[in-house]
């Protein structure tokens, strides 16, 4: 078998991230505590260069999909857009995290190394064209995440949530693997394209395929955190150190989206009628539970965890439509949601001080008196999460809903709107606390410049993206051929 070095070209971003992660791992050993900032800079440079590498290979809609490595790796437009979004999110995560990591005495190279390996796992998932590489990418991301959650070793809360995450994650991996083995048993192939051809021959009513599909849905739903596979999410978001919650909340949702598209649309597209029903069930439950239980939370991290669950419901709505417009809407929603989630957790970090974690709603009381600017940033983020026009969150919701209406599931769209109206209550409550209540402390907000600058951009993006998101929406559409 001949090997051509050029087949590695589409893999350049992955190879670069792997090389840099290993380099940082070794370099960190020789960098003293005081100069840990170098590790941070190396991680940021990695993101910049990998973005350039991905951009160089990104050729727009006319560029054909490239498959290499014997059909285990695929480079296409959807993958490139999602990867670029992940780099931007990870850069924001690193900037936000640095401040809080210093407070917690967690400013160690391992955070960056594990986060980069986790990012590599996401990239592998996004580009997976076979069940095997999909599963391995998922495990790479999951293992890095478990370790990151447990990184704060002296915190009983972090260890407990890491344990829960690990045990539940292992069960979900088992379910996913079992589903994959059923699909393999029925179709005789691990390759997603070959599976889709075999499914066409077998017919969509093959019971073994349906059985395998049910387990695949479990695996994907766990990764998303959709009800009833959401149990880990509030505990892990709450228990993990905020820089790690930030990492978990933002980018992995994009990888989960890619996983759902590759498994359900690419491989099992002919079984749309089966997985649509399952996803409707998951979406209905996620929207209800996420929005209603969040009202009862007094801890902001827990509240945002439930808010994640409800937003996952929206992402699933777009996917279950099964149309290119639905996928594009869901992809746009996932990207916008990840940006909003990163911003809100960034705000928690901004208000945290040495030894005090601003994770309760009370910490946001009277923020307007302490810093009108950041109260406005937080208001933008929350209003966008709630889906208030003219913020970009509203337009993301609108696109998903119109995709659902287009497939004649109007009741589902109406239901989603009602649930978001219920959900708007708890976002508005935080805004009320910030603007109408008196602050508990009049301490000024101390944070480094880079954190404040990125957070400001993140907040303003909620408004500006409404007008400037055209290229993103167009790219999302082009990824699915519209």
């Amino acid at each position, binding site marked *: 078998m001949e090997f051509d070095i050029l087949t590695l070209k589409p893999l350049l971003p992955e190879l670069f991230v792997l090389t840099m992660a290993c380099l940082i791992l070794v370099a960190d050993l020789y960098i003293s505590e005081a100069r840990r900032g170098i590790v941070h800079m190396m991680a940021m440079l990695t993101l910049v260069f990998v973005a350039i590498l991905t951009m160089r290979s990104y050729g727009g809609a006319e560029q054909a999909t490239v498959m290499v490595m014997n059909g*285990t790796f695929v480079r296409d437009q959807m993958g490139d857009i999602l990867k670029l979004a992940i780099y931007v999110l990870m850069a924001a995560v690193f900037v936000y995290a640095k401040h809080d990591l210093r407070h917690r005495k967690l400013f160690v190279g*391992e955070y960056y190394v594990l986060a980069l*390996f986790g990012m590599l796992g996401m990239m592998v998932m996004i580009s997976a064209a076979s069940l095997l590489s999909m599963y*391995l*990418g998922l495990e*790479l991301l999951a293992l*890095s995440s478990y*370790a990151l959650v447990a990184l704060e070793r002296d915190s009983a809360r972090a260890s407990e949530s890491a344990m829960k995450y690990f045990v539940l994650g292992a069960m979900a991996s088992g379910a996913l693997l079992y589903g994959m083995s059923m699909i393999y048993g029925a179709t005789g192939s691990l390759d997603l394209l070959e599976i889709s051809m075999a499914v066409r021959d077998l017919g969509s009513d093959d019971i073994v395929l349906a*059985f395998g599909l049910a387990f695949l849905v479990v695996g994907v739903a766990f990764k998303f955190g959709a009800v009833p596979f959401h149990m880990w999410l509030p505990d892990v978001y709450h228990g993990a150190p905020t820089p790690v919650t930030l990492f978990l909340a933002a980018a992995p949702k994009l990888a989960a989206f890619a996983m759902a598209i590759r498994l359900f649309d690419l491989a099992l597209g002919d079984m749309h009628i089966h997985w649509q029903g399952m996803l409707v069930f998951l979406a209905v439950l996620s929207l209800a539970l996420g929005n209603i239980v969040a009202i009862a939370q007094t801890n902001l991290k827990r509240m945002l965890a439930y808010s994640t669950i409800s937003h996952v419901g929206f992402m699933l709505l777009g996917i279950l439509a099964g149309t290119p417009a639905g996928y594009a809407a869901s992809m746009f929603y996932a990207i916008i949601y990840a940006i909003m989630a990163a911003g809100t957790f960034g705000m928690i970090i901004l208000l945290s001080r040495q030894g005090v974690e601003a994770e309760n709603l009370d910490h946001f009381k009277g923020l307007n008196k302490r810093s009108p600017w950041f109260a406005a940033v937080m208001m933008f983020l929350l209003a966008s999460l709630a889906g208030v026009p003219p913020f970009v969150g509203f337009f993301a919701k609108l696109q998903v809903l119109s995709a659902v209406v287009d497939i004649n599931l109007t009741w589902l769209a109406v239901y989603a709107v009602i649930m978001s109206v219920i959900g708007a209550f708890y976002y508005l409550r935080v805004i009320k606390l910030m603007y109408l209540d008196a602050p508990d402390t009049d301490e000024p907000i101390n944070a480094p410049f880079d954190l404040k600058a990125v957070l400001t951009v993140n907040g303003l993006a909620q408004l500006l993206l409404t007008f400037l998101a055209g290229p993103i929406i167009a790219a999302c559409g082009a990824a699915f051929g519209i």
Partner: protein
Amino acid sequence: MTMPIEAIIFYFFAAILVGAALAVISVRNSVYAALFLVLAFFTSAGIWMLLEAEFLAITLVLVYVGAVMVLFLFVVMMLDIKVEPLKAGFARYLPVGAIVALVMAAEMFLVLGAKHFGMERFPVPQPNPLGYSNTEELGRVLYTEYYYPFEIAAVILLVAIVAAIALTLRKRPETKFQDPALQIQVRKEDRLRIVKMDAEKRADQ
């Protein structure tokens, strides 16, 4: 109908495997559980041997039975695991758990029965030609067809190492250790104190 010898061997190993796996999760003593896991690995190696996957079978015995499980036994023996608190909610959750398990088992039986995975659904595998090497064939696909997943698996192992060290390695202030650099720099004045005192007469003289 007589059973072919392969079927008899398969059912023999399969029965032991299922029994051992059940014992792993049901015995009270965790050392016994680890030993049953060894038995489970060993019998699955037997089944793999039946599939003519000799290399995998031997690796399973060497790596899992020989190395991993022995280490695991050490850990189990060093930890003082109390079984009773772990089983605290067992009786309370048993009815619901049993119902869910039974329903799932019934559903799996319906799908995985002879209708979909019966002998007639799959062709009889061709026996391997003489001189066929399982190890060579595995190596061939591992480094060509499955090169990419193989590399990712290697990265996963690297992450596991990094995570294990990051989570367990810590500098304890109470740990005593030697610093050779300081040891060789020591001077006589640092360690030795010469006390001048007058000689004293013995009391009995």
